[in-house]
């Protein structure tokens, strides 16, 4: 089951420790400008901090525009830039709808998130729980759950279990309407 990186922006504190971890992992240096994840910090209006990194698109625009075929999907669906085939034309940087491919003035080729080979460092250092590395099928589950939990027509009953007050919520069909 392929795992993917995902973000809960409202949890991000803007500390950018993820950027440090990324640059250490990939370039053996401390340099947020060489990180494949970047925290965009916007204020005072709107107020949001959002880490931007590659979502490993199923139909990657970056690969589509690459004239050299240097951008390929590996067996886990991770999009990789093969530096030896890349000429540094920067088309992919402009083509990415999320701005998740990066350039640095000291490097000849662009770089992007490779999920650290399946164990992303950024997630490990995120102390606010804004970054997650989860199987693809989990995506959207939070929203599905909260959608269900906030269903308006739930019934509630209170009961006591071993002296402790509890509550049961349930959806009840009620008087069956004849709607056919």
């Amino acid at each position, binding site marked *: 089951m392929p795992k993917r990186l995902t973000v809960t922006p*409202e*949890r991000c*504190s*803007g*500390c*950018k*420790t993820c950027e*440090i971890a990324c640059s*250490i992992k990939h*370039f*053996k*240096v*401390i*340099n*947020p*400008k*060489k990180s494949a994840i970047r925290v*965009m*910090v916007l*204020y*005072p*209006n709107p*107020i949001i*901090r959002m880490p931007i990194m590659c979502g490993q698109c199923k139909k990657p625009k970056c690969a589509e525009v690459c004239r050299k075929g240097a951008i390929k999907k590996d067996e886990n669906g991770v999009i990789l830039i093969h530096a030896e085939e890349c000429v540094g034309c920067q088309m992919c940087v402009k083509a990415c709808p999320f701005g998740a491919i990066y350039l*640095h*003035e*000291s490097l000849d080729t662009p770089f992007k998130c490779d999920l650290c080979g399946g164990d992303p460092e950024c997630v490990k*250092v995120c*102390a*606010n729980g804004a970054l997650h590395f989860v199987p693809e099928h989990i995506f959207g589950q939070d929203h599905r759950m909260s959608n269900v939990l906030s269903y308006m027509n739930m019934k509630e009953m209170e009961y006591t279990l071993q002296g402790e007050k509890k509550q049961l919520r349930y959806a009840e069909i009620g008087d069956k309407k004849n709607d056919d």
Partner: protein
Amino acid sequence: MEIRQAGYDCLVITGRAPELSYLWIDNDQVSIVPFPKLKGKSALDTERLVREHLGDHTVSMAVIGPAGENLVRFACINVDWGRNAGRTGMGAVLGSKNIKAIAIRGSNDLPVHDLNRLVQVSQKAYDYLRNHDLFTFWQKVGLMSVIDYANEQGFMPTYNFRDGVFDKSHKLNADEMINQGHKINDSACFACPMSCGNVCVVKNGKYAGTAVEGPEYETVAMLGSNLGIDDYAAVIKGNQLCDELGIDTISTGNLIGVIMEAYQSGLLTIEDLDNKPIEWGNAEAALDLMHRISNREGIGNVIADGTQGLLKKYPQLERIISHVKGLEQSAYDGRGSMAMALAYGTSDIGAHHTRAWPIAQELEKGDWTHEKRADLVIYHQTLRPLFDMLGVCRLPWIELKLDEHCYAEMYSAVTGKEATLDDLLEKSKHIYNLTRLIGVKHGLTRQHDYPPQRMTQDAVQTGKLQGCKIDLEEYEKLLDIYYQKRGWDKKGIPPKGKY
């Protein structure tokens, strides 16, 4: 971080730009860009306009507001929205140079001698912090936790430092911030997992739409309880206004408190105050006064010159201005702690807790001698500035008890120069002595090392420390011992030729 990545440890700006400009540092390219359009702009508008001018949203910025341009003596330098070089009027220094903003882009690798070692030490410190029992609590409330603590201990500045307990502090504390939905997010400094900052928004009422990175303990105490204001939304508004105008919330709250007391006790007349009454708890009047300080209008023009300016025009205020060496006292009432009085009295910059904050330790357990107090203050005055020298925060050490020795380990890993904590403290002590000597050169002597008059003359009115004030005779003894331990003479002057 940007500045370090651009390749600089610090900036020295000499001279003055002919017209209002911003300093643009793009790695090794440095230019002074005239931009008169910035005149009178708020700090945040300045950030936005310069970023637009440069066409780069991600440059890091240090800016001043209109108060800095107008040379308000407690104007601050705002850095990337929320963080300020708040005290001692550095914003006015920048303003005097016609520099409205410093914009920096740095893209170099950080020079690190031994990356593996640094990662190892950092990982250890990081794991310690994240596994600390108070870690999530700290992320949730940060320094706002100090409100309840200070009030319980009885050293919360209240009604211009007259009292140490604010009976409406529950309307200003962390619970109020969370329960009223003011806090919308955590905020962290670069590379810090603790994220002690809070982003607050006022969602309804007359201050609706106000957003600020903060407020934190000092701001809430100085713009809240110290002014008798019990409305958290009003404090958020005050914080935002101070940020926009570019004035220090501590000095601002301190001096507005003085004006409120002076007006109500008759030390200043309504005419002195441009016929605008300002009573305890009057948030609107306080906000209005902030504008007038920043624009140097009427009484605002006098307050804008800080304690020194106010005392020059109204010497009768000496009795009620809490200051040391002309710097307005920060939000810890030291009347119950001789060590805190000594910390304020002997701090090189004046009545601020940055150099030493021994009050918690002294109030925690008894059995304090002057020897122990002096030792503690000197240890703080040595260790705490060391954090500033290293360019790191002291809060992991203070709040979550991170072992201070790890900083020496990090220093060694980064620089390649082996140093123990003691080695670094020795350097720090040396610098403290040098700083003292600079002061001495400019006339600093024993008479400047005393706590504010209020601390020695008016006792705390209520709470745990009721009746406490600093006994001057005892303070003299403590000061003698402090000087002796420092190796300074009776006037507080370091020996000749040693440093």
